[in-house]
């Protein structure tokens, strides 16, 4: 049986809410400036959930932070642009405009929200701080809006607003992170590893909430994760990241069903699953490159690639469309055969 694959390809002229174009983020080190993100390009389409997948060190969290123009020192955006509808190029924003963009148009849920909440203040106080930082006049309305969102994520507003973060469970804190990201009517929601510290039932509940607020508020959502299962559960589009330009992107179902880049294939093959042949799972050898080991020339993945050819050491493959709606950066011809 072959499943029908939905081709949710966007036509070339479909609107884009966020366009990351040729973005390079470098960190200053003793060895000079080294790239954490190198020429990454991602388009976020309104109403879609995009899943950004990569291993530790692939630069996915740096990319997410760059979208807020919040790359921590000694890092800096060295080239490229991030254009957001209504804001312009985020990399050019500064001062008050930037502060209002962060948490305003761009909602951000931090990796392990449990550690990003202030342990000394109740959730309600932190909400008011957020309002003041954004020059919100009507703080009462802000609290009403927050209370409504808190009920929408399945919690009791009165209890939560008076709680300190240690009084809430991991899943609850993650939901508060989502509420704080959306309370100022963000249009773009960026979630960095939203379920990593959660068990499977809390994860399912949080993903369900993300799906719902995304739909109900008409958001453009980016979810950054190392877990293909999470992307499969929630994302419309899948972007794979690995040091250099993205190896592969396309509609999530199509990419999972028929990965075309050796790295995507290896990632899927390295998952332990609850069905299927256990011995078919393959360990992905080696480790992702870090700042100091990332090759300056050729394909970044070649050292771990089972299909590497001589050309891979010399030329960096370009990200090109190979079939409608899907792009890949690989010298090996796409076979379309599932491995």
């Amino acid at each position, binding site marked *: *049986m*072959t*499943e029908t*694959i939905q081709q949710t390809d966007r036509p070339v002229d479909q609107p884009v809410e966020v366009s990351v174009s040729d973005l390079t983020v470098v960190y200053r080190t003793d060895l000079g400036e080294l790239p954490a993100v190198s020429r990454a390009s991602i388009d976020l389409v309104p109403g879609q959930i995009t899943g950004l997948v990569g*291993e*530790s060190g692939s630069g996915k969290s740096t990319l997410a932070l760059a979208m807020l123009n919040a790359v921590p020192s000694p890092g800096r955006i060295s080239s490229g642009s991030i254009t957001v509808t209504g804001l312009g190029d985020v990399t050019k924003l500064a001062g008050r405009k930037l502060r209002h963009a962060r948490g305003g148009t761009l909602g951000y849920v931090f990796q392990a929200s449990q550690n990003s909440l202030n342990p000394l203040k109740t959730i309600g106080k932190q909400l008011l701080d957020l309002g003041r930082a954004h020059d919100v006049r009507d703080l009462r309305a802000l609290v009403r809006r927050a209370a409504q969102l808190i009920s929408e994520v399945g919690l009791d507003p009165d209890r939560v607003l008076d709680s300190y973060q240690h009084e809430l*469970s*991991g*899943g*609850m804190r993650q939901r508060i992170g989502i509420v704080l990201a959306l309370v100022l009517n963000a249009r773009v929601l960026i979630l960095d590893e939203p379920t990593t510290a*959660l*068990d*499977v*039932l*809390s*994860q*399912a*509940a949080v*993903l369900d909430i993300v799906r719902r607020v995304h739909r109900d508020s008409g958001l453009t959502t980016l979810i950054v994760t*190392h*877990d*293909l*299962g*999470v992307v*499969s*559960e929630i994302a419309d589009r899948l972007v794979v990241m690995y040091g250099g330009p993205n190896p592969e992107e396309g509609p*999530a*179902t*199509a*990419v*999972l*069903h*028929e990965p075309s880049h050796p790295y995507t294939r*290896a*990632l*899927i093959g*390295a*998952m*332990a*699953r*609850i*069905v*299927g042949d*256990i011995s078919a*799972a*393959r*360990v*992905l050898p080696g*480790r*992702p490159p870090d700042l100091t080991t990332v090759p300056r020339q050729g394909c970044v993945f070649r050292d771990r690639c089972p299909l590497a050819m001589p050309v891979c050491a010399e030329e960096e493959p370009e990200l090109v469309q190979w079939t409608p709606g899907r792009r890949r950066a690989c010298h090996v011809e796409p076979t379309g*055969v*599932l491995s």
Partner: protein
Amino acid sequence: MIEARNITRTYRSHGAITGARVVPALRGVSFSLPKGGAVSFIGESGCGKTTLGKILTGIETFDGGELVVDGVELSGLSARRRAPYFRRIQMIHQDPYSALNPTRTIEQTLEDPLRMRARETGGDRKAVEARAAELLELVGLSPEGVLGKYPHQLSGGQRQRVVIARALTVDPEVLIADEAVSMIDVSMRLGILSLLRDLRTRLGISLVFITHDVATARYIGEDGELHVIYRGSVIESGPTDTIIQTPVHPYTQCLLSAIPIMRGLELPGPQRLVPIGSLDERTEDTGCLFAPRCPFATDECEVAQPALTPWDPTHQHACLHAEPRQVAAMEIALSQ
């Protein structure tokens, strides 16, 4: 190898405002682990599975039941007499970032326990060094590349391998892995899991695998037993694949339903279940503990906690409304 009978553990907290509170962490857990075998304990955060792991390694005491290791019942023995039995059981912790001393090189980390071991067996310095190198190779690390390094110079996956090598320094017969891969990148997890599998087949080490992730439990102990814990009680147990394919307890069914489906490769089970509410809610302890969250609960469920009863000779459950449901993902047959 290990035989646990009706292990209970209750914590008492003395809150300044709430007063003394009794929190049962384990309410009578029984299982047996054959030599070279594997058992997995599955449950969500706070179900008591970590407490069980600590009891099995002797870090934590238990207040009821019997723990038999190699035929010897341990609860009657003094701490001193118990120690050699617990040394056969070693723990691999969840967090490889905090399990290693950051100020000590990998060489120092491994050689301390090895020297202790050598004093008993009469080995010399050379033997200690050789054993450290041998253990690192066994866990898939190159001794030259790793021995002189500090933990921060290694990746999460490499650190977890060092933690495993350290556990092996005392030649254990059982390894307890408590969420051993949950903090490691998905791409690196399989390597650690297959290492644990290898240790089982090559060295005959038994494994107790504690996790919330059914898929990793299956990878480690496909041929072993799976026990599902809810609020300190085992509510279903049996052969791993039987529990995945034909779970009969609604809680097990909720857990399996929550596992993400790999679209394009799997189809969702047709009878997926979602629990009501969350574990945070404190409820009365009479009746079935899962009843407040159970979609099938009836008045009968409030009366008494159902005992573990056989569904078939190898498969047990504790539910008045047990019924097999197809909730786990189903593989899409490929057309090629």
